[in-house]
């Protein structure tokens, strides 16, 4: 069966510090991968979407970036965090090559920028 991992689970970082969140998927190949951010009491905002290694689309302008160095690894980064980057970050995957598949979410990372 497929599983998705995210770490760390929680993170407290000062403004201006760098960020690296990692997501890995097991049990599937060529997945579509996603990074979302969820503010408190709000819906999910899509940040990045990837259909393959080094194929990443950015959905919103921001000081975040994403990379996919391996087929089942997705990394969210920032060089300098802002207070507004605080939130709940979720990684998700869906089967590739399918037009309307459900998405499977990881456990999330709670980021607090102080």
């Amino acid at each position, binding site marked *: 069966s497929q599983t998705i991992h995210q770490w760390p689970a929680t993170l407290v970082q000062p403004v201006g510090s760098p960020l690296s969140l990692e997501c890995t998927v097991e049990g599937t190949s060529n997945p*579509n991968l996603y990074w979302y951010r969820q503010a408190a009491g709000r819906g*999910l905002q899509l940040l990045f979407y990837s259909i393959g290694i080094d194929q990443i689309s950015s959905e919103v302008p921001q000081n975040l970036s994403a990379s996919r160095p391996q087929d089942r690894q997705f990394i969210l980064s920032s060089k300098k965090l802002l207070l507004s980057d605080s939130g709940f970050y979720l990684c998700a995957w869906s089967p590739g090559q399918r037009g309307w598949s*459900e998405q499977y979410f990881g456990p999330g990372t709670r980021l607090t920028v102080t």
Partner: protein
Amino acid sequence: SQKIEQNSEALNIQEGKTATLTCNYTNYSPAYLQWYRQDPGRGPVFLLLIRENEKEKRKERLKVTFDTTLKQSLFHITASQPADSATYLCALGNAGNMLTFGGGTRLMVKP
């Protein structure tokens, strides 16, 4: 711009009753619609998918309807239980398997 509206107020119902949650959208022509359940501090969990040419989809105690004329989806939980208490998110999708999520509605089922 695309807009998805879910009731931001919590829905409180008594155990055993049917819960009905609403998802309305504007400026969008989705190919499909999905519903997810999210518990506090956890990632969303997929529940149901319904395509634009389908009127209704059922799974156990869950039922989803999709009216592309009204631009609305209704999500029903029959014989609700306290364990059904959670936030429910609707999400609309088109080609490319990208989803746009609504803000979610919190459901509280009281014993």
